[in-house]
């Protein structure tokens, strides 16, 4: 009981059960690294928050299983990654979400990510969006928001 309380206290306020503790940081929507699109239509096209949750879970699971990128996720808290990534996509698609994760530079620091890793992730995201029947033109509106993050995520 006491231990459980301690673990709960150590977790950031937005964490869900099963997440590991992270070093403190200031949560802000600015950390999402992109401004939201205008209008709610795109969020609906993605199937709302439930649709985004499924897309994010499928993308992360495929990236973890992909031999090109599996090593990168070896030590990753996948519960937290799915939650924060889903918040981020929801926020960018102008859904009713706040992004509570770290900024993109901090989150990917010292990971040595290359363009190829990003391409692999985007390919899995495209497949996941296809499965949710998000039309190609709508998919590209999300990808257009994510693409510039390459500059802080990928190391040269």
């Amino acid at each position, binding site marked *: 009981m006491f231990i459980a309380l301690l673990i709960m206290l150590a977790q950031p306020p937005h964490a869900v059960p099963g997440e590991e503790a992270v070093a403190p940081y200031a949560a802000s929507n600015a950390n999402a690294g992109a401004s939201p699109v205008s209008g709610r239509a795109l969020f609906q096209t993605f199937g709302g928050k439930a649709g985004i949750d499924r897309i994010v879970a499928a993308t992360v699971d495929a990236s973890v299983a992909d031999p090109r990128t599996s090593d990168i996720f070896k030590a990753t808290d996948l519960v937290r990654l799915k939650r924060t990534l889903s918040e981020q996509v929801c926020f960018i698609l102008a859904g009713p979400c706040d992004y509570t994760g770290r900024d993109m530079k901090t989150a990917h620091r010292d990971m040595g990510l*290359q*363009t*190829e890793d990003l391409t692999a992730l985007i390919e899995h995201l495209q497949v996941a969006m296809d499965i949710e029947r998000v039309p*190609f033109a709508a998919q590209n509106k999300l*990808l257009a928001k994510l693409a*510039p993050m390459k500059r802080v995520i990928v190391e040269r």
Partner: protein
Amino acid sequence: MRALAFALLISAAAGPALAQDLRPSGKLLLTGGVSTVEGSGGGGLSTWATTTGYGEAAGIGANLHATKVELSDFSLTTYGAAVGIFDRVELSYARQYFDTQAAGAALGLGQGFTFGQDVYGVKVVVAGDAIFDQDRWLPQIAVGAQLKKSDQGAIVRAVGAEDDTGVDYYVAATKLLLDRSLLLNGTLRYTEANQFGLLGFGGREGASLQFEGSAAYLLSKRLAVGAEYRTKPDNLAFAGEDAALDIFAAYAVNKHLSVTAAYVDLGDIATFKDQRGLYLSLQAGF
């Protein structure tokens, strides 16, 4: 002078490439364009600022292409190879055969007389990232040169060309407007090539600035449709030369195979009117 400028461009190309370490890169389907009839990466007729191939092997991507254009009175066949290095440099080669078919006899050249040409190209990306810079207006910009050598020197001079060898210099700007699934390209080319160089270089005048533009709409990961327009010099006294245009569909079977089909209109060629027809190109690469 021409050869020197070309050599300078090649060494400028090698510089940045060697400075980078050998790491893999990656690209999404169709984002590198297809192969032009001149061997460089782009649309079918116009060269883009993107480099060819998906760069899966240590940042180096390569492809082979074969293209057939069946016009009303002529046919053009090209084969070529191109290498893209670290998304920065592209080296290309194309071999073109322009078969005059029955028109050859009418022109006094003989039935099936064929003009051939070799095109050696180098392209260097100097700024921007067409795909990832979605929050900026700056397009991807590349400069390049194509050294062209006709293998019918005596004939092209006889029809009024000044030379059987020429160099095209170009600046290309390519931008993917991903939120609109639209890819745009504009290229300025300084050239004296008659009918791409197949009918030699120069004539009434020397080199001039020409424009080529393309727009492609991405319908899916695999399929893009679009149109291209390319102006050309008009330097041969015996026959007027027109701008070229096409509408195309490019389909990526996978990262290793793509097919491009187009309807092209090359205008009048060597006094034969309205040369239109089908363009089919296969590209295999990695």
